[in-house]
């Protein structure tokens, strides 16, 4: 079975959880910017968490499958609809063959993940199907998707077949389960909570004013916000003593301060090491949340201890595992 891209889109790529083990060759992990949403969408279709799915940014393409399919949408709500009727988020949805799934303006969030039961069966490069467009690596021909592309879909797993059997019987052609799943709602009151960070490599080299400025000010996401990083605008930050940096490690969620003073938050396709001083490390669960911010949205920051950061990571993982077991139990139980 194949998935056909019918419409244009802003920035749609094939992503999974990224390729690990190659950073020593300068190849970054890449992968979904909001991995929790990708994992949720995959689990909702009975896929393994690391199956390849679509990451769709701001303007999503309409798609059609040339066979019956079970899909799930998680992350940003982009007003999905099938054959004219609205389709819900965060739950398994059965699309009869030929049903066109289309999207509108995003109501909330910036990146939506569409998983299909069986996963997108594009070739794996260096252990991952994740697209790293800058090096034309992985995904579909190493690039963003355009109208007319058609991608192979893998063999549907057992759980996917079970879902299809249940949903096919419903009177509505495009059918979905009465249950949905997710560890956090992408809504204003949750999305714009402060972004928590731990001390960066050069935190103590920054001036006292800069360190308090980061905590007190709102920073706006500029249009230069893509899979490599989010450039922010707001109160400038400076080292106490200006010095040329030796290139050091840089990782997902690092808050870098180039000489101009405006912060950059490193995202999935960041360079594996860079030469700018680092004031903070946004915790990974909040870096995933940051991926749902659009240009023009504002960020506030809150410093926390390493111990708190670790606890939050582990709590979030526990919630994901509870959700996964919950989804599997509902699928096993006949989906109702």
């Amino acid at each position, binding site marked *: 079975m194949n998935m056909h891209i019918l419409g244009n889109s802003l920035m749609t790529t094939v992503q999974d959880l990224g390729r690990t083990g190659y950073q020593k060759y300068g190849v970054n992990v890449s992968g979904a910017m909001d991995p929790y949403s990708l994992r949720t969408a995959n689990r909702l279709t009975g896929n393994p968490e690391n199956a390849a799915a679509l990451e769709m940014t701001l303007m999503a393409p309409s798609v059609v499958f040339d066979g019956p399919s079970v899909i799930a949408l998680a992350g940003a709500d982009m007003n999905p609809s099938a054959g004219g009727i609205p389709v819900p988020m965060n739950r398994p949805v059965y699309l009869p063959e030929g049903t066109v799934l289309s999207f509108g303006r995003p109501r909330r969030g910036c990146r939506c993940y569409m998983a299909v039961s069986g996963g997108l069966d594009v070739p794996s490069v260096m252990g991952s199907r994740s697209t790293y467009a800058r090096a034309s690596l992985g995904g579909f021909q190493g690039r963003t998707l355009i109208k007319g592309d058609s991608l192979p879909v893998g063999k549907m797993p057992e759980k996917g077949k079970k879902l299809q059997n249940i949903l096919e019987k419903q009177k509505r052609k495009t059918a979905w389960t009465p249950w949905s799943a997710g560890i956090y709602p992408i809504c204003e009151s949750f999305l714009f909570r402060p972004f928590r960070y731990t001390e960066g490599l050069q935190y103590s080299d920054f001036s006292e004013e800069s360190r308090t400025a980061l905590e007190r000010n709102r920073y706006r996401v500029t249009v230069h916000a893509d899979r490599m990083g989010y450039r922010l605008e707001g109160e400038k930050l400076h080292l106490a003593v200006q010095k040329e940096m030796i290139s050091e490690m840089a990782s997902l969620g690092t808050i870098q301060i180039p000489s101009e003073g405006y912060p950059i938050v490193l995202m999935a396709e960041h360079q594996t090491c860079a030469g700018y001083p680092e004031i903070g490390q946004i915790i990974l669960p909040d870096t995933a949340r940051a991926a749902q911010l659009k240009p023009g949205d504002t960020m506030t920051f809150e410093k926390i201890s390493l111990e708190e950061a670790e606890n939050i990571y582990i709590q979030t993982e526990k919630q994901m595992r*509870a959700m996964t077991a919950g989804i599997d139990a509902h699928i096993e*139980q006949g989906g109702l």
Partner: protein
Amino acid sequence: MKQIRRILIANRGEIAARIIHACREEGITSILAYSSADKNTLPVEMADESVCIGPPRADRSYLFIPSVIGAAKGLKADAVHPGYGFLAENGDFAEICEEQGLIFIGPSSKSIRLMGDKAAARALMTKIGVPVIPGTPGLVHSAEESLEAAGDMGYPVLVKAAAGGGGKGMRTAETPDELAAAVHEASEEARKAFGSGGVYIEKFMKNVHHVEIQIMADARGHVISLGERDCSAQRKHQKLIEESPSPLMTGTLRENMGKAAKKAARAAGYCGAGTVEFVVDRQGQFYFMEMNTRIQVEHPVTEMAVGTDLVRTMIRTAQGEPLPWDKDLVPRGWTIECRINAEDPARQFAPSPGVLKVYEPPRGRDLRVDSAMKEGSVISPFYDSMIAKVIVHKNSREEAINSMEQALGQFHIEGVPTTIPLQKQILSLPAFREGRVDTAYIETHLKDILQNMKEGKS
């Protein structure tokens, strides 16, 4: 050490009542999760708190993990006791409890999964030098492989599901042409009941007793044996009568089997109450069958034989407490248990749900009746059909048998057929009285036993 104050009990019937008793004695709040079919049952009245978690169908209540965990979290339980059956040996459930900060009163999910895969457990036992019943090292994947393996072992053979248990997913094959059907049926039954149909093949052991060793281990890996239970009086792998000690037992055999059981428990990194099942032949040679990573239905036999409370000990070891004994315990006197089920021997022991119009259990010293029934209680069609367990403890086997016959005689139940008449017959068999009942005896002599029963011989 982790303090337990509130336990959610994810089970029903007599084991639920049993755990509620243990909670009372430990000063712990008992919270019973029940299905709407069990709303008016005794345990719901006994528990400190109770919560309805689903409709009668077990797969939407007692077996539906989100509802059990949802109830435990909602009512702020800090531990979950799974009892036996339902989720007791579900590795996923134990793992989710561990991850969601709920103390699972039982072994770790790793031990459950290891021992839950019967084929993997056998391989582990062979590795650590515990004798196993001759059989295929792992699962069989093709007809040729099964035929060849069965041919080497010699018929009859027993086809067993790796994920099987409680007599489910098992078929015997007397001859090569019966093998294919046996493999198919066992695999299908296991796939439906446990979600996985992998099967392996074991030699069908003749003239052997089913002897299981009760072990208890604490979080520091300290393991002791609490003696054996002989459960040979069974029909289609369903136990009817259990006793401790076993008529076959000698001091050295008990020591050797105890050592093997403790070795198995340590290899599985075991914590809590567990049972290692063996078959023992006439020459006193024993072979590992499987390990049950739960409190067993017949645990009261050991409790009265060695004088302890296994359920309370389970709760304490789950809080990290060390074992209260440092030496193995040995059964004293003689203990016998009969499981009274609502089954109609005249209709191939079909479970017979119904209402207990009359329910008057026997009373007396050295006599214990574990049950959750009272007059008017309903034996529901949705779950097992157990009414009660009668346990007697006397100085000698002779006295114990007579005392059990007397107790069964006084047990007055009306409204549903029971297994009491059958058990009375078995107790009166010369073979039973002389301790010669092996695992096949009841099955092969069933026609005569039922005939005598009809003529009201007992």
